[in-house]
């Protein structure tokens, strides 16, 4: 019935077209009816790509030299202000993994004249969100507030940035919470896979190899003095920037920031150097037993490259084709074609130092070996030239949806933080499209060959060993190293009552 309806319309259409010649009045009617009947025989053409007109990035300075990077966005009365410190989890002392993480979370547990409860109450009452964070190479405090509460929120933000109190009883509480989190990781196949992936790739001597929240030993040993020392070493104007985004002008915010941060003192911190990570030399499979698991968590990867690489744009395009979008090869193959999984993807984690390249998925236990086979099929296939069609699709996907990363004040603040941390030029956002569009097929193949060596990767599988070991070993992808969850995470910590 649907079919005949469409057909009859087409018939009317073709008749009408014939009548157009010479009949002015009919022409009007016909044009109208023509515009109402869709041509479904091929997808409609796209309009010319729209251009993105972002407000300018404004650079300001406080009297003590702290740089303020600002973007105005006046649609919604919200403001985001972030203190960004150029130090992070990589700066954890070797014997104190987790120190950056515990220090920053403790900055929320008391500041200025307020204890932890008073501070939380004051922030929540404003409807604001002020929280401290630690990344690999950055740490800081981010503040999100309705414009109407900006002054109150800034006062609390200033306290957290400049006057954290690190109360011992809060540290004890934080310690128990962290040890319990470590314990709960034993339940989480994703956490187990990701801890072992980092450990295998980077080892014990590189900061990227350590669990970010610390290990049982370090968590039990943290002293208030350790936290204060980390804070005093890295939190200072010589090492800090401020990011401001939202419904605010530079004239309005600068005096407020000057009043809070203008007298902050402290020297510049020497950037630490770290040992170069050693690349994976030989393919091996780490099979971590999770008895009875209905799915296997798969992680395949090696050390990738840093954010400042000249290959950045080519890698973004290549990864979009491989596993960076829904219609990417990995997802199409493992999910849509074979139904092994709910989703498969790949990613280059660009950091200050080379972060990991990772391909992964959670697949049904019974097809673990077949899924691994398809992963390697795709990791090998990406070394061959990609089609023109795939290249164009990937470039369009990256460039045409790029404006979506600038919707909220929090998203924009994150984008500006990248500008600061990686020292990107101010025209970076506006040139993104141009830079992606210059990537060629040859570039894609070159970076695939350079960064994806399917015979030099680590394979992590968290799953039901007794069901999968035999079939996985038949793939002959490398030596299988059998591990228990305790081998990866250590024994689950036991809390004293």
């Amino acid at each position, binding site marked *: 019935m649907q079919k005949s309806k469409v057909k009859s319309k087409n018939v009317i259409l073709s008749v009408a077209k014939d009548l157009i010649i010479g009949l002015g009045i009919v022409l009007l009617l016909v044009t109208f009816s023509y515009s109402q009947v869709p041509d479904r025989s091929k997808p409609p053409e796209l309009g010319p790509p729209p251009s993105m007109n972002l407000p300018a990035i404004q650079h300001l300075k406080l009297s003590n030299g702290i740089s303020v990077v600002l973007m105005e966005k006046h649609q919604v009365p919200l403001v985001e202000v972030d203190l960004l410190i150029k130090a992070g989890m990589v700066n954890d002392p070797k014997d104190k993994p987790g120190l950056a993480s515990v220090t920053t979370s403790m900055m929320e547990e008391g500041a200025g004249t307020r204890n932890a409860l008073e501070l939380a109450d004051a922030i929540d009452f404003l409807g604001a969100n002020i929280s401290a964070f630690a990344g690999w190479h950055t740490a800081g405090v981010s503040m999100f507030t309705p414009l109407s509460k900006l002054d109150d929120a800034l006062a609390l933000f200033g306290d957290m940035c400049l006057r954290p109190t690190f109360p011992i009883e809060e540290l004890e509480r934080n310690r128990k919470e962290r040890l319990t989190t470590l314990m709960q990781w034993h339940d*989480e196949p994703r956490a187990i896979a990701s801890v072992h992936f980092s450990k295998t790739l980077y080892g014990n001597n590189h900061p990227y190899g350590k669990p970010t929240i610390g290990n049982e030993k370090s968590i039990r040993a943290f002293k208030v003095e350790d936290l204060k020392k980390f804070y005093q070493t890295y939190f200072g104007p010589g090492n800090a920037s401020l990011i401001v985004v939202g419904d605010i002008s530079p004239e309005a915010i600068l005096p407020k920031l000057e009043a809070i941060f203008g007298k902050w003192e402290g020297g510049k911190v020497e950037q630490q150097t770290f040992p170069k990570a050693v690349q994976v030399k030989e393919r091996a499979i780490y099979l971590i037993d999770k008895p009875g698991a209905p799915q296997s968590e798969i992680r395949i990867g090696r050390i990738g490259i840093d954010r400042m690489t000249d290959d950045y744009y080519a890698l973004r395009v290549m990864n979009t084709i491989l596993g960076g979008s829904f219609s990417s090869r990995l997802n199409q193959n493992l999910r849509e074609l074979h139904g092994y999984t*709910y989703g498969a993807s790949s990613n280059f984690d660009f950091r200050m130092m080379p972060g990991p390249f990772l391909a992964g998925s959670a697949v049904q236990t019974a097809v673990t070996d077949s899924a691994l086979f398809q992963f390697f099929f795709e990791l090998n296939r990406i070394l061959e030239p990609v089609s023109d069609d795939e290249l164009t699709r990937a470039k*369009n996907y990256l460039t045409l949806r790029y*404006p979506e990363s600038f919707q909220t004040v929090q998203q924009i603040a994150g984008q500006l933080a990248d500008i600061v941390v990686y020292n990107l030029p101010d025209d970076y956002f506006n040139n993104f499209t141009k830079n992606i569009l210059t990537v060629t097929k040859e570039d894609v193949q070159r970076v695939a060959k350079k960064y994806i060596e399917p015979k030099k990767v680590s394979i992590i599988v968290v799953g039901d060993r007794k069901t999968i070991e035999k079939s996985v070993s038949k793939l002959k992808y490398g030596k299988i190293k059998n591990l228990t969850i305790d081998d990866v995470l250590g024994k689950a910590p036991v809390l004293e009552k």
Partner: protein
Amino acid sequence: MKLKYLLYSFLFLLLINLSVSQLSVKFEKFTLPNGLTVILHEDHTLPTATANIWYHVGSGNEKPGRTGFAHLFEHLMFMGSKNVPVGKFDEWLEAAGGDNNGSTSSDRTNYWENFPSSALDLTLFLESDRDGYLVDVMTPEKVDAQRDVVKNERRQSYENRPYGMSSIVIGENLFPPDHPYHWPTIGSQEDLSAASFEDVVEFFKKYYVPNNASFVVAGDIDPVKTKELITKWFSDVPKGKPVMPIQQPVAYLTEEKRVVLEDKVQLPRLYINWITPKHFSPGDAELDILANVLAGGKNSRLYKRLVYDLQIAQDVSAYQDASMLTSVFSIVVTARSGHTLTELEKIVREEINKVKNETPSLREVQRAVNQYEVSFLMRMERVGGFGGKADLLNDYYVETGNPDYFNEDLARYKALTPDDIQSVAQTYLRDDGDVVLSIVPQGKKELAVPEKGDK
């Protein structure tokens, strides 16, 4: 008492007046002859737009033996249609810089495409083609392919996730077997295996008709041109028979049910659940605020007592999960090692009784309302995706008849007094009509709350 109350009200008003302005999302609404309701909204902040369609069908409409079908069907909507070969829906949209997703709940199924404004025509073609002509090219093989994907979604999101089966067990115990909320949206593995090609055709013809849908296009659009294009692409989608809303008597519990589940987890977790008023009905906003008073932030009653002071719990949360037929209010607490769920339950009940017996302070209620107020501002920032303005316009239209219900929705919260919060606690958080689920590590049933009568 009276005087104190008056003073509180005064302060209350004063605080509200300090805060944000009116929220307004301008829209234009029209209906096509085939019954499709269309809502347009302009926002030119970025050169992007979104299309968002709600079908008024969810897992609540499923028939026995076919649980999970509405969601499986959602997956099939991405498998190509008469003029869009399999795989091309995603491929063509992504090649145009777009992105898409869909979701299924017990009440409705929604789909969105975010796209650069240059891809409006393409997006409308893709969406209308599957809305009109999905089953023309449906095959048993496509059903099989997505069946496997959905089964893996169930494994990933429920079976292989610690405590992952909780929501399924809670629904089964809160609602009688014939209630649409008794079974989970994800369905059972057996029912997913049973779903057939014929089921797909029948479901499409019954529910996926324009008179059972509402469609929002929002963002960087020209409303005149957009209206023309929507009329062009959607007018030939055939109208279906009217779809009647589910008629369901209000469910209530007349006793307390206690259920114990063993799972591969380190720590026991307690879930207490009540049946509560449906979304937007009296009591719903009050229960949102009650949830915040109980477990939102460090100073909330349960967090402060269990996690902060006594440190016998790792985390606690409370929420009003609002749906169109009825809602569920839940409190969830995870014990620290060495502590039993019985210990936790005793304190949770004490704190609930405190709220019932003594009006919460003005500050804690206002603190919660203020947080809601900011969350409404945040909703103004995004146009597309789940929870973006387009999705909310559609939700408000479906549930209240008014797409721009932002102010009215927020006003529900701003009007609340501490007495209102106390009152919903008394009315709904009964201890003789709830479902108490204990999830304990395997072989450790002694950590669960005892059966009723052993209390």
